[in-house]
């Protein structure tokens, strides 16, 4: 029983980390179809934002909360610059986008090395996130609970924004049928830019959360980018809720297989499961039905 509770929690927690890393990508890759290899570096930028904020403010408790919106803005700004400077010139050229954004990711990594140094830095967790919470004899690390809640909050906020706001309607309209959206008076250029801002901003938020878990170094993003793409592909392109289900499924699968085997074997098996799943269902868990001609 102990093991079941602990491992389910660890799986959900691993899933929430995957979800945070992949949520922004579900928007930019899933909705807009842009393969952004620099998404991982936006996560890294978020992590370094938390580091800088903490150094400026001093207090760990306050700075974690303050750095969330700042990281969202910085990640988003990076995304908008990337979109306006490069990506808008190569929509419908996925291979070029892949190469260009990979180049951008290398540039950003080197930039981080030059600014912050090659060695990792540390962002101490605030007091109120120290240690575990005891519930019915089980102990759950507070940092993991915080990330779980943050991931759920980020998902709910994004889902609500897409569903209920005017901007959300414009994004959905543009995704489903771009020419028709344009003829209805929607500026698809402005919508693209905003979508990219939100997607990249979410990467920044993920970066702040990841400072609680692991190392903050220039190659932080490379550790998450592949997993993030896997989540979006398994979830189904164009669907935010698909990413949520995929992230938690992968998280729980990883933690269970890892518990009964080893970490290396778990990675291989989860990957094999994904490949097998995509053979059966190449479109992912959910698919979008659109009236688009494309």
């Amino acid at each position, binding site marked *: 029983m102990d093991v079941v509770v602990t491992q389910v929690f660890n799986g959900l927690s691993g899933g929430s980390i995957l979800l945070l890393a992949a949520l922004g990508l579900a928007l930019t890759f899933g909705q807009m179809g842009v393969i952004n290899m620099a998404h991982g570096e936006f996560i890294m930028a978020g992590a370094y934002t938390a580091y800088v904020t903490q150094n400026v403010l001093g207090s760990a408790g306050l700075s974690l909360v303050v750095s969330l919106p700042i990281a969202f803005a910085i990640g988003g700004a990076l995304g908008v610059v990337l979109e306006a400077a490069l990506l808008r010139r190569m929509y419908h050229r996925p291979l070029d986008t892949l190469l260009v954004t990979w180049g951008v990711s290398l540039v950003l990594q080197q930039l981080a090395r030059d600014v912050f140094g090659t060695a990792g830095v540390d962002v101490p967790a605030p007091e109120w996130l120290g240690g575990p919470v005891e519930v019915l004899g089980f102990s759950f690390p507070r940092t993991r609970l915080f990330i779980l809640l943050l991931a759920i909050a980020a998902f709910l906020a994004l889902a609500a924004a897409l569903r209920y706001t005017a901007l959300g309607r414009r994004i959905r309209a543009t995704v489903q049928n771009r020419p028709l959206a344009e003829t209805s008076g929607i500026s698809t250029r402005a919508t693209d830019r905003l979508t990219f801002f939100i997607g990249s901003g979410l990467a920044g938020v993920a970066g702040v959360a990841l400072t609680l878990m692991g190392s903050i170094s220039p190659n932080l993003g490379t550790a998450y980018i592949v997993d993030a793409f896997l989540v979006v592909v398994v979830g189904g392109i164009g669907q935010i809720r698909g990413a949520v289900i995929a992230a938690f499924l992968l998280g729980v699968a990883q933690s269970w297989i890892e518990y009964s085997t*080893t970490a290396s074997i778990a990675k291989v098996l989860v990957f094999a499961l994904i490949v097998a799943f995509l053979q059966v269902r190449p479109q992912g868990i959910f698919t979008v039905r659109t009236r688009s001609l494309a």
Partner: protein
Amino acid sequence: MIGAAALLTVGLVLSACGARVDSADPSGAAAAPSCVDTSGSEIKIGFLNSRSGTMAISENTVFDSLSLAAEQINAAGGVLGKQLQVVAEDGASEPTIFAEKAQKLIRSDCVAAVFGGWTSSSRKAMLPVFESNNALLFYPVQYEGLEASKNIFYTGATTNQQIIPALDYLKEQGVTSLFLVGSDYVFPQTANKIIKAYAAANGIEIRGEEYAPLGHTDFATIVAKVRDAGAGAVFNTLNGDSNVAFFKEYRNLGLTPEQMPVISVSIAEEEVGGIGVDNIEGQLVAWNYYQTIDTPTNQRFVEAFKAKYGENRVTSDPMEAAYTSLWLWKGMVEKAGSFDVAAVQAAADGVTFDAPEGTVTVNGENHHIAKTALIGRIGADGLIHTEWSSGEPIEPDPYLTTYPWASGLAS
């Protein structure tokens, strides 16, 4: 046309090298004659470290301390009266590039010796290059042992100068059970084989053994297994960024060094900052050098290093071993009275250096050096403080031939 011109140039350089032969090695009949130029007032040496790629974080620090040693040796009059001229190459964290660049340093730059390498895979890739050219490599990092090439001098610890003393210390502290956590590659697997043999011979129970892929970031499951196993101590051979995730998880689950200490063999002063002092304070490490060693020699080394690279920099074991390696080479060359590889090899035995870690002595037979083992505890200041010392330098024994329990390991 350009290609032909390039070929011609290469040919000219090669023949120029050949023309400068001054000390053909009589014993190494198979090796091409050395092209080291000893006629001028300068002598070339090569530094081969990863200046780019994932290992750059660690290897840049080794490059810095090698540069400091070269500068100091030159200021003190050089080696055999010749100033050192450093040729630096980037191994780019790729074993194949290490091998190529080693070949270049030996054959086209004609350096007298090469200093560098970090990962065991880079060393293994360079080994045949140095053996076939009969050249010299000085390797500055602790490693898994079971190797002794006459063309390599190993100035970091072998297993009986780091891992076995760490186990001796734990046993002395009354630890009767261990949990092994490591990265999934050659060093941790070999180290754990030795640990298990030691444990079997000393009545220590191994409660678990877990490996994480290099770069693994989620340690929830592994740390949960560690907690549930309730061993007396954790022996940690994780490498790189994984340590950060591991120690954050360890603390987040409420585990403390008092309950279950973690002893690490790959975490030095450089890494403590990135892991976060809060997360690792009070945990143990095993090395042969710490910045806090309180001797005049070490104080001079630390001061010189900080003066050259900045007050906020720290010195660590591999850096000190690299610094020491250049001085040891100087000692060997001056004892031999020649830069010739065979002469240096013959003179190596018994060469000593008053290093920052204490006096070290070269073992001419296996080309390792006698070093004092130190167990350290990480303090609130982010530095490592000596907790226990082997008292005297331990003779290197890369094949563990003097330990009866290890008889099955070398095969």
